[in-house]
């Protein structure tokens, strides 16, 4: 179990550097066996949170425990039970896949037959068999990510922390990656994964939306989507730019999000639809289609971020 209470971490503040708050009053509890997704825009504090949980970064204040071990006082005990995959390729570029894995096995005390078996098993499901002799630096970005994951799994960790494991990975490899994570989840591991991709967040059993060092929303993906007020319309029209400008002034529209050649409109209720049609008609926009659409996590996420940042700006200016 992971417990985070009123966690704060800031950087800088010395030598006339600006003090930047990466995490500000974070509270979060993650139960054993969860597949938890930490999502949020760049700079939201996801990496800082994971680093603190991995015991490699001291919080400025507040407490966090992993399986009952405090991240400051008992960091080494956490490291024993944890698999941590940093965002950056953390294995040795000058060593081969095999040499890297053997090093990690040495570190975690996996020896003899158990080692050979474990490496075989992990290479099986990461499909890295044919690259065993290749140097770390010669691997593609996706293969490096898989190797990092393999290394993090060597010692059967109870808790797995993955920092953007699929960033820069092609869609096929991403799919494979998530199959592995799902498998680990069904085997009972606690997995915490940070990701900027909303489709990945949908695959978690719980997601936390982080923004500006705080958790805005934290629930199952479906519950998060249900938190969106009103309903969603998908609009196709001949002039989306004009349509967007016109609709900004229409009452009852909470949010407008362009998505390819569609405009996703978050509205109060169905009645707003007729108002939309009328306004666009007056402005000379030709509507191709306007129909209710099921909200996805992406819309929810963007909506919450916009809500939060405007509230935030108001708070700051007030």
């Amino acid at each position: 179990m992971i417990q985070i209470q009123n966690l704060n971490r800031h950087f800088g503040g010395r030598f006339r550097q600006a003090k930047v708050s990466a995490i500000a009053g974070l509270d979060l509890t993650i139960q054993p066996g969860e597949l938890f997704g930490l999502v949020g825009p760049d700079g939201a504090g996801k990496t800082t949170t994971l680093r603190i949980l991995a015991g490699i970064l001291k919080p400025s204040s507040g407490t966090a425990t992993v399986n009952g071990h405090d991240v400051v006082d008992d960091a080494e005990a956490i490291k024993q039970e944890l698999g941590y995959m940093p965002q950056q390729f953390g294995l040795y570029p000058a060593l081969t896949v095999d040499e890297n894995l053997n090093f990690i096995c040495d570190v975690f005390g996996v020896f003899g037959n158990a080692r050979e078996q474990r490496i075989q098993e992990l290479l099986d499901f990461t499909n890295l068999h044919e690259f065993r002799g290749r140097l770390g630096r010669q691997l593609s970005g996706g293969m490096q990510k898989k190797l990092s994951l393999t290394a993090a799994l060597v010692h059967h960790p109870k808790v797995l922390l993955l920092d953007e494991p699929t960033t820069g990975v092609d869609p096929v490899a991403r799919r494979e990656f998530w199959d592995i994570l799902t498998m680990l989840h069904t085997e009972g591991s606690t997995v915490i994964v940070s990701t900027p991709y909303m489709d990945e967040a949908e695959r978690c059993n719980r997601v936390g939306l982080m923004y500006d060092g705080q958790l805005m929303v934290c629930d199952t993906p479906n519950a998060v989507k249900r938190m969106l007020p009103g309903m969603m319309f998908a609009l196709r029209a001949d002039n989306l730019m004009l349509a967007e400008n016109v609709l900004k002034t229409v009452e009852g529209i909470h949010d407008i999000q362009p998505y390819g050649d569609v405009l996703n409109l978050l509205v109060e209720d169905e009645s707003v639809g007729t108002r939309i049609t009328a306004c666009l008609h007056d402005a000379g926009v030709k509507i191709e289609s306007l129909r209710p659409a099921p909200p996805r996590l992406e819309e929810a996420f963007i909506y919450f971020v916009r809500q939060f940042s405007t509230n935030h700006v108001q708070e700051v200016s007030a």
Partner: protein
Amino acid sequence: MTNRHMMAIARKEWLHITRDPMTIFLLAIGPVLMLILVSYAMATDVENVPTVIYDLDQSELSGQLADELDATNVLDVQGYVSSEAAYQDKLERRKTKLVVIIEEGFGEQISTLDGLMSLETAKPKFSFVIDGTDPISAETALEAAMKTSEAFVTGQLGAVLDEQQAAGMADDLITLYRLQLESPINTTVENRYNPDLKAIWDLVPAMIAVALVLPGMSISTVIARERSEGTLEALVATPINKHAILLGKSLPYMITSLINVCLMYVVARVVFDVPFRGSLPLYLLLSALYAFATLSIGLLFSILIPSMEAALWASMMFFLFPGVLLSGMFFPVDVFPFLVKIETIELPVVSGVIINRGMFLQGVGARELWWNIVVLLIIALEGFEIAGRLFKKRIA
């Protein structure tokens, strides 16, 4: 176009340099420090070479001579010894570089008419013993001691001659004696440890010590390299004991150092024909200690200095330049009076040079080298201890 591109690169490079305060500090201060050190070494004359007097004459005049020797800039007379064994001991402990032996009857001979008259058959005899392991200091000191002694004898006997001239001694005799006073003494020089003054004998053992700082320099980048390659984060997230990380990183360097010592020993003996007069097992042990000390310091730099470039700079300035300068290879060690006091405390390379020269040429053992051994032990253990304390298994 090219110009604009060049300026773009230059501006970016400048930002890079200024972003890393350690590098800019070293870039700014390094050349100045080098200038001061090297110029100081080049410009300063040898001064205050520790000297002892073995006075067999025990006369008032031999005492005066000792004062005159002390009055020179070059020599610093630290006292008298009463036996050959005593000055032998001082040479071995590097407490003195020059021994002036004043023979019995010296005072008598330079103050009387008889003495003046005996000049033709037996000039006053001086013996000097120098420590050949620091040839520049020793040679300069020897020259100063000879000139001073000569001038002292000439002065004393000149006064005797003046008296005789006033008393009516024949002019041709006076001229004859005056001629003899131009070279009034007889000297023998014994060069301990390096009798043929082979420069290579002094150079090679010192160079072994200086060359052994190279592993210390390369280890100073190990943590910075992990950081710049991005592997440090994953490494500190593992449950490896932090001392195990530091020891594990040192071990390969330690082994290469020891292999190097053996190879350099063989090269010194076989290729350069340098004698080895100490105990070989002790030499290997002390070389290991010396290597450990330089590696400890290198490791400490590695932990303190976050960028590879700055770490390399710092270790070069700490190991290589002072090592080469203070090792006495090119400049006598004594020209840095204030540095001499702190050298052995701060710079393992100086102790390394002393141990190597001592064991190759002087044939000394642990008893004579105890101070350097203690210094290296402290540097090695303290350096490692501090490195271990400062190294946190965290990334910020």
